[in-house]
Each structure stands twice: as C-alpha cells, then as structure tokens.
C-alpha cells in the first residue's frame, strides 16, 4: 500500500481528524487524551457500520486488530488501515514485526513502549490533543501532533563531537568533514547503540546524526537524554541517502518530485522503512555514473569539495558543522 490517507472518525460528541502516510504510525502521550476512545469508536463502526452512529471517513477501510488470533486475521486483510490498542502485547514480538513487513496494510499502533523490531519514523510518532481551531460546545475536535518537539534538535553552534549512527558511507562522509574542522567524529555503529554513546559523552557539545526514517524506537530515550543534557543536539533527516538526493547533485526533476511526497511512491510491502527506498533510489540513479553510490563504501567523489558542500548545505540550514570546507 502507498499514499497518504485522510481519516475522520466522529460521533456527536467527538471528532478525530488526521492523516496517515506511512506503514507504521505510533500514537502515545498523556493519559486521558482519547486514544482508547478512538479505538472504541473504530471498533463500533467496524462491527455495526452506520447503525453504530459512528462515522468513519477514509478512502481505505479502517479497522482494529487485536486479540490472540491477530496472526490468523491479518493475512486476510489487504490495503486497509489497522489500529492496534496498547493492551496487545504482541506488538513487541518478532512475529508481529515480520507480519507488518510482509503486509500491504498500514498500521496505527497505540503504545508508549519502544518497539525495537519495527523501523518507524520520528515523524510518525504522535500524541492526540484537542484542536484549538474547531472546538465548540457540542463536539470536541481531536487531532494528532508530533510528540517530539524539534526545538531541542536545533543548534547553530559548531559541536565539539559528532556521533553518526551509520558505520559505512554516511560515517565516512561526516568523518571527512569533521577531520577538516577539528571535530571528533564517532560512529555509534547502529541506532540501538546511540544512547550508550551519548551516555558516555561528558560536558562537551555534541551533534547526533541519525536516520529519522527508522529512529522511532530509540526516540523516547534519546529525547529525554537531549532534554537532560542540553548540549547534545540531534539532526534527523530521513537518511544519509535522502540528504544526497535532496542536495540536488543528482540531476532529475523526478527525484525532487519524489522527495516532495515520497508516500505516493513507496510501496510499504517492498520497503519496510523509507530509508531503504531512498537507498534504492540513490543506487538506481547513480548506477554506472561517476557518482555511483554504495552504502558499504563511500565513493570518494562524494568527498570532492563542491559535492561535499552541496550535501552539507542541506544540513546547515539547521546545523553548523564547518566554518568553510
């Protein structure tokens, strides 16, 4: 399944309105914001249809998934948006992750737990709050908001240390820039190691560069660490490959068009997370050219001054890494 879907769920007292655009969306946040009520309304609508008095407006069918027989039910559901409530412990399992990966449905999962087996994006972790725009006396309007405020991410100061999630091409690229600018560069060798590397940092200012497309399971802990150690900042683009594509060094209106609305191009069953799509896109569009890209080993062309700066310009709208390269 691909595409963005606008969803409205309402009865005469409550209205939920939001968009879903990736295979995995997480809803969490404070108690008493209406998460369980949303599931309850969807269950009633799925079970009784119009006679439930609940209206569900969406281009795709919306239903809940839960209980011990989820794995028997799921293979028979296609191209739908499935909501999973927090009581379902199976969301943490490897079996569920494998089922999501093979599925052509979108999943909206209500949980505060960090689902290490699922590669969800920092952009798709939401809370629910009451909309100030439409609130009226009769009906409460609820909408989704990004849980992780980007304010703690931004910094215009040059860091003393850069921590890169990648260990291959992405790391080689940033290490080269850091070496030129007297910045210590460390590879965390994977997103699950980031928090331990951050924990070991002293009082120095640090910038963590990670792939936002799949960093979701780490975000709760990384975010708390950033708030607790304010000299640690975080840059989360979709992935290093996305940065390269975004920089414009590879010609083609089509690439920029895809980057404008990737959800319309990324088939969820083929790409478990968007970073895999951007890698495939970059590999495909640089094949047999001087910019031929490999994730395992950085093509030295990417370290040429002009190309390096063009990629860096995408980051330096928010972060300063270099005085000049």
């Amino acid at each position: 399944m691909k595409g963005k879907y606008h969803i409205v769920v309402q009865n005469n007292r409550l209205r939920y309105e939001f968009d879903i655009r990736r295979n995995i969306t997480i809803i969490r946040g404070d108690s008493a914001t209406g998460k369980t009520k949303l599931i309850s309304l969807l269950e009633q609508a799925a079970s009784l249809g119009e006679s439930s008095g609940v209206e569900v407006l969406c281009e795709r069918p919306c239903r809940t998934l839960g209980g011990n027989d989820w794995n028997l039910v799921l293979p028979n559901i296609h191209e739908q948006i499935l909501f999973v409530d927090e009581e379902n412990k199976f969301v943490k399992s490897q079996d569920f992750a494998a089922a999501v990966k093979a599925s052509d449905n979108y999943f909206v999962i209500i949980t505060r737990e960090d689902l290490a087996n699922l590669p969800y994006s920092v952009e798709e972790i939401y809370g629910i709050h009451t909309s100030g725009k439409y609130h009226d006396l009769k009906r409460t309007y609820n909408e989704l908001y990004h849980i992780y405020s980007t304010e703690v991410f931004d910094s215009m100061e040059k860091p003393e240390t850069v921590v890169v999630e990648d260990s291959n091409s992405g790391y080689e690229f940033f290490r080269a820039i850091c070496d030129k600018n007297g910045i210590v560069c460390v590879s965390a060798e994977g997103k699950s190691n980031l928090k331990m590397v951050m924990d070991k940092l002293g009082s120095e200012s640090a910038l963590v560069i990670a792939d936002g497309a799949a960093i979701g399971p780490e975000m709760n802990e990384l975010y708390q660490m950033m708030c607790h150690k304010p000299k640690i900042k975080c840059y989360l683009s979709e992935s290093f490959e996305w940065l390269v594509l975004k920089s414009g060094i590879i010609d083609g209106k089509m690439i920029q068009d895809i980057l404008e609305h990737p959800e319309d191009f990324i088939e969820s069953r083929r790409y478990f997370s968007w970073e895999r799509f951007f890698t495939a896109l970059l590999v495909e569009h640089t094949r047999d050219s001087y910019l031929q890209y490999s994730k395992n080993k950085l093509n030295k062309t990417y370290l040429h001054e002009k190309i390096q700066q063009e990629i860096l310009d995408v980051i330096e709208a928010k972060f300063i890494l270099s005085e000049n390269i």
Partner: protein
Amino acid sequence: MLKIIFGEVENSIYHPPTYFDNQYEDEWITEPLTVAMIKDIDKSDVVGAHLIESPVLGPISTKEISGGVKTLILMAFDQSGRIFNASACGDNCVKWIVELGRKKDLTINLHHVMDFSSVPEFEAVMLNTGVVVHSYGEYLEEAIRIKER
C-alpha cells in the same frame, strides 16, 4: 518507597485498565485520593461510585475513566499484591506515582523509560540493579543502562 522494575516480571498486570474493570471496588472511587486523581488527569468529577461527569463525554461510567487513572487507582488501593504496568500511564501520571511511592511501598513495572522530569527530586529503588536514585537525572542515567524493557 517507590520501586521500579523494567521488563517482564512475574505477578505483573500488563494491561491494568482491563484488570481494573473486573476487580475495582466501589469504595475506591469515592476516596478523596481517587477524586483528586480523576479531577487532575481526566478533568472529570466523581458524582458517585458509579457515575463520573466528564467535560468531553458527559456522564460516564467508572469503567470509562482513562487507563492511566485506572492504573493509579489500582496502585493506590489494590491489595492483591500484583505489580501494575505503569507504561499504561502517561507522563501526566508521574507526580501521582511519586506521591503514592512516598506514602507506601509501591512497586511498578515499566516497559519504557517513563519521563519523570516533572518531578526533579524523588527517591526510587531500581530493582533490576538495586541502585537507589534520588533525582530524575540519576533515574534516567540508571534506566538507560538497564537492558530489560
């Protein structure tokens, strides 16, 4: 004293709201502590043991209060010896968990690193390691190092 244990643990209730629906006692609901927690978290008023007035939903049954408050009520009044999963509580429940832990021995189970930053100073025993923490900062540093979730 508050005791925190991360990960799977025997005798714990993973989804306290369901347990609450089937085990709560009427007299818990009208206790001043419960009335205050429902007012603070759900912004709702306890009319009686069977009726809550919600500003959003109107008059609702006790079973329709939030999962977070249900979990807090269990932590406060349940005598079964069960350990309740505090990952069913939002961060807006943290001050009540800390307060309950100051009044009695309270063991909670967590499957995520709950954000206690709204209560900068509190004491808790991290049962996975035996370390006693005295502040949010100490809690966070210890929690990050614990592998169980």
